[in-house]
């Protein structure tokens, strides 16, 4: 696969490389500074790439050589970038000249050659990436400080060319690279063959580059250009090697050990096969010899009587044969013993692989169960079932800590659950609490007991364990939101069942289950919140309904109050004319027969009576109109509505005499229900009258002004009854708020007024105190202006 791929890729990459080289060469022909900048920037990009890949794949790489070279690349790249910027003709660092660029170059090369030289020594050792990073940072900073501070030796003198220090450094650096190459190849077992080749080539290119740089006299010269090409190629090869190691073949690296183990196993197997065949061959040979012996025996029997001398010979032959058989048998036994040992070894290896596979299956199934299940009980049951069915454990159970007494209660179990009957396990410091399960819970990690029947800590359970065939057990603590809530314990029928790999897998299972528990808790919380929200919504709906019912009741009450008020008004208005009518009627009877009772007297009485009756009839019509529900909204003149209202109150404002003044600044028209508007005016005027009566105001006055303000009809009704106390002025529009006492006020008049003006008519009703009394202000949007 890889070979095919590389065969396919190679021409393409070769072509692009060539194209890049030609492009760069053309750039150098055009402008050497451009070429230098481009080639250095490419180098810096590749160096950055090396760092990024090496740093981010450092766990997969598991190769400190690349990590160190990667980190070094970042700093070498940084210095090279500075070198590029300092280059003659760029002008970023004026006043330094070509010496600075050359100094930076040398610093970069020192750092690079040193890191490549040092890297092989880190192979197979521990390297902390952060520490290496910090060391490089400090070193680079110091070097740069030396360069910019002028402490660093001169490398290039204009006119003279390169200084001996610079040339010497380049040779020294070349030797460093040679050393790097040598030591790297000494540790070739750490690298793939192709990677080894790539790195070797890269270092060789670096050496060649150095040599090219020793001979130039002009920073724009040809040897300089070649040197840069070689350096770029070197970086690119390192990059390739890293890609090869870090990205293309990580799996090879990861599974190399497994592969090796597998091939070893295979070769052992083959050897075994060979030996087996050999054994078989020997066995056949033996058979043949045995048959031969038989024939000889027969011959011997026949010859027994024939020759007595032959007996001795035969005996001798027999002994010899016997010796040979014994020898052969011994050989055979040895071979068989060896074979058995091999078989045991093989079975052990196979078992280990099998166990590992089983645990992998358990982990996989557990993870599926975690994804599937939504509640804790199902999850516990599932993982126990998986452990027993897929993991072939004798018993798996999950125990949860009882916060009250420290006992572990069985939450789920599978397998030989008879073991759990009357089982006492706690997390306290007692024999029942220092078993594998108790320990893992208390320590919040895991506990492996690979000799269940031999370990002293499992003594309380030795007998039970033997009955159920347990030889090893493992317990993993289960955590929920970081707190240990219990443990899962597994029992295996083999001693030393749990090895390091299995322990890691068990830990993984424990971590996954704990993660799932956290998820379940979160899910439960979310559901509870949702439920609470739903309940709250229902509650709110209910409250809204209650509120609506209350409002309906208020409207009803308001209507009844208005009705009562109106009936009072009618009674008041009619009392006087009724009295007059009564007097007219009685007078007729009183004067009958007397000279005064003539035609004229009668006519006058009748005419006056009829006039009063007409007036009363009109009054009752006015009231009836007010009580008639408005069928539709309509435009009405505000001052007409006010005069209408006052006619309904006629009489009420005569005793005590209340002077009503209407100031009409405008003649606005409102669109709405006139009777509702009248009801509002009635409420406000009646309140004013009641206040005037209660406070016995002399010279009582109510001033009604009508005007227009910004497309609004504005009516203010001001009395001189002293105003509303400040502590209740904010409450007068509240429902059921009244100052008149339970018999006289219902507390809904002003509430309904506000509802009518603000809700039904989209206006505003407000109150304030003036110097002499209360002033209500009604603002309603203008209807069609007449």
């Amino acid at each position: 696969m890889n070979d095919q791929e590389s065969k396919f890729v190679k021409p393409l990459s070769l072509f692009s490389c060539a194209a890049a080289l030609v492009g760069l060469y053309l750039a150098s022909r055009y402008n050497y500074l451009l070429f230098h900048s481009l080639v250095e920037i490419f180098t810096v990009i590749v160096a950055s790439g090396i760092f990024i890949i090496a740093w981010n794949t450092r766990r997969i790489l598991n190769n400190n050589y690349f990590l160190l070279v990667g980190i070094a690349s970042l700093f070498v790249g940084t210095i090279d970038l500075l070198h590029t910027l300092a280059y003659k003709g760029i002008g970023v660092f004026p006043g330094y000249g070509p010496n600075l660029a050359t100094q930076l170059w040398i610093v970069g090369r020192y750092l690079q050659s040193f890191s490549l030289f040092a890297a092989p020594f880190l192979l197979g050792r521990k390297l902390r990436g952060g520490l290496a990073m910090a060391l490089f940072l400090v070193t680079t900073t110091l070097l740069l400080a030396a360069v910019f501070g002028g402490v660093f030796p001169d490398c290039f003198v204009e006119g003279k060319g390169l200084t001996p220090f610079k040339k010497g450094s380049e040779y020294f650096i070349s030797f460093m690279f040679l050393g790097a190459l040598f030591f790297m190849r000494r540790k070739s077992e750490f690298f793939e063959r192709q990677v080894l080749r790539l790195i070797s080539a890269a270092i060789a290119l670096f050496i060649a580059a150095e040599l090219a740089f020793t001979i130039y006299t002009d920073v724009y010269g040809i040897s300089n250009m070649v040197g840069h090409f070689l350096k770029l190629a070197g970086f690119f090869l390192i990059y390739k090697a890293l890609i090869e190691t870090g990205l293309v073949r990580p799996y090879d690296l990861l599974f190399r050990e497994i592969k090796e183990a597998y091939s070893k196993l295979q070769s052992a197997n083959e050897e075994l096969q060979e030996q087996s065949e050999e054994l078989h061959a020997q066995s056949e040979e033996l058979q043949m010899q045995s048959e031969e012996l038989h024939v000889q025996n027969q011959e011997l029997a026949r010859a027994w009587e024939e020759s007595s001398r032959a007996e001795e010979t035969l005996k001798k032959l027999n002994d010899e044969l016997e010796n040979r058989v014994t020898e052969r048998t011994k050989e055979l036994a040895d071979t068989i013993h060896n074979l058995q040992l091999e078989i045991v070894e093989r079975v052990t290896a196979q078992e280990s692989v099998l166990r590992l596979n089983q645990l992998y299956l358990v982990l996989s199934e557990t993870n599926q169960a975690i994804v599937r299940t939504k509640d804790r009980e199902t999850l516990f049951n599932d993982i126990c079932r998986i452990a027993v069915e897929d993991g072939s454990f004798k018993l798996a159970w999950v125990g949860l800590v009882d916060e009250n007494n420290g006992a572990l209660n069985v939450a789920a179990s599978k397998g030989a659950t008879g073991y759990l009957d009357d089982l006492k396990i706690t997390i306290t410091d007692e024999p029942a609490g220092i078993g594998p399960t108790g320990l893992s819970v208390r320590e919040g990690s895991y506990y492996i007991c690979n000799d269940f029947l031999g370990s002293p800590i499992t003594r309380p359970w030795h007998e039970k364990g033997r009955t159920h065939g347990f030889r090893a057990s493992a317990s993993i603590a289960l955590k929920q939101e970081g707190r240990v809530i219990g443990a899962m314990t597994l029992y295996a029928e083999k001693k030393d069942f749990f090895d390091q790999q299995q322990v890691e897998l068990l830990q993984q299972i424990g971590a996954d289950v704990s993660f799932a528990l956290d998820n379940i808790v979160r899910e439960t919380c979310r559901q509870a919140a949702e439920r609470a929200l739903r309940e709250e919504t229902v509650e709110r709906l209910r409250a809204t309904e209650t509120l609506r019912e209350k409002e309906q009741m208020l409207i009803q009450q308001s209507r009844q109050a208005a009705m009562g008020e109106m009936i009072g008004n009618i009674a008041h208005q009619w009392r006087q004319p009724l009295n007059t009518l009564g007097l007219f009627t009685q007078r007729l009877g009183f004067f009958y027969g007397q000279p005064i009772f003539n035609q004229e007297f009668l006519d006058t009485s009748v005419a006056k009576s009829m006039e009063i009756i007409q007036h009363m009839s009109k009054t009752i019509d006015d009231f009836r109109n007010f009580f008639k529900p408005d069928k539709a909204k309509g435009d009405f003149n505000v001052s007409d509505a006010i005069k209408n209202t006052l006619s309904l109150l006629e009489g009420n404002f005569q005793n005590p005499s209340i002077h009503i003044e209407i100031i009409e600044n405008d003649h606005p028209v409102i669109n709405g229900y006139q009777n509702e508007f009248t009801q509002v005016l009635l409420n406000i005027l009646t309140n004013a009258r009641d206040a005037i009566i209660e406070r016995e105001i002399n010279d009582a006055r109510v001033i009604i002004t009508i005007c227009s303000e910004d497309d609004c009809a504005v009516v203010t009704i001001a009395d001189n009854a002293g105003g509303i106390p400040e502590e209740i002025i904010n409450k007068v529009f509240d429902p059921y708020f009244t100052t008149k006492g339970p018999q006289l006020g219902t507390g809904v008049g002003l509430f309904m007024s506000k509802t009518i003006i603000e809700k039904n008519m989209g206006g505003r009703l407000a109150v304030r105190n003036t110097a002499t009394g209360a002033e209500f202000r009604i603002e309603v949007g203008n209807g069609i202006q007449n």
Partner: protein
Amino acid sequence: MESKTSPKTSISMLFVEDDELILEIQASVLIAKFPDVVLYTAVNGRLGLEIFKMHTPEIVITDINMSEMCGLQMSGNIRALKPDTKIIAMTGKTGQSVRMNSDDKEFEFDNIIVKPVILKELFSVIDRCIGEIEQNASRLECSMA
């Protein structure tokens, strides 16, 4: 004092009512019914009080709710001037509510006529008042003699 300076031979009566039509009709009936009684009329409490101060009538018939000085106020003032004046109140409201409105003044009318006025009732109340006044006058004469 009155009896000393100008002993009265006839009874006088003051009728106060702010509704002029009622005033007219009721006055005409009262004149016809009590031809011997001198009748003064007034259209509000203030004028009524002025007339009372001028003529000190023995009987005062008054409406309660009036624009300028109500019947209660006027009656209070009259009582203060001459406590034995017979005051008959006419009201659209019931006697209870009249008392309620005036409880701070501790005022009580001798008689209350509820509107609409039934003339016979009014007449009998006036008759009774006249009777009481005449009795008092004769008692006073006796005591003087």
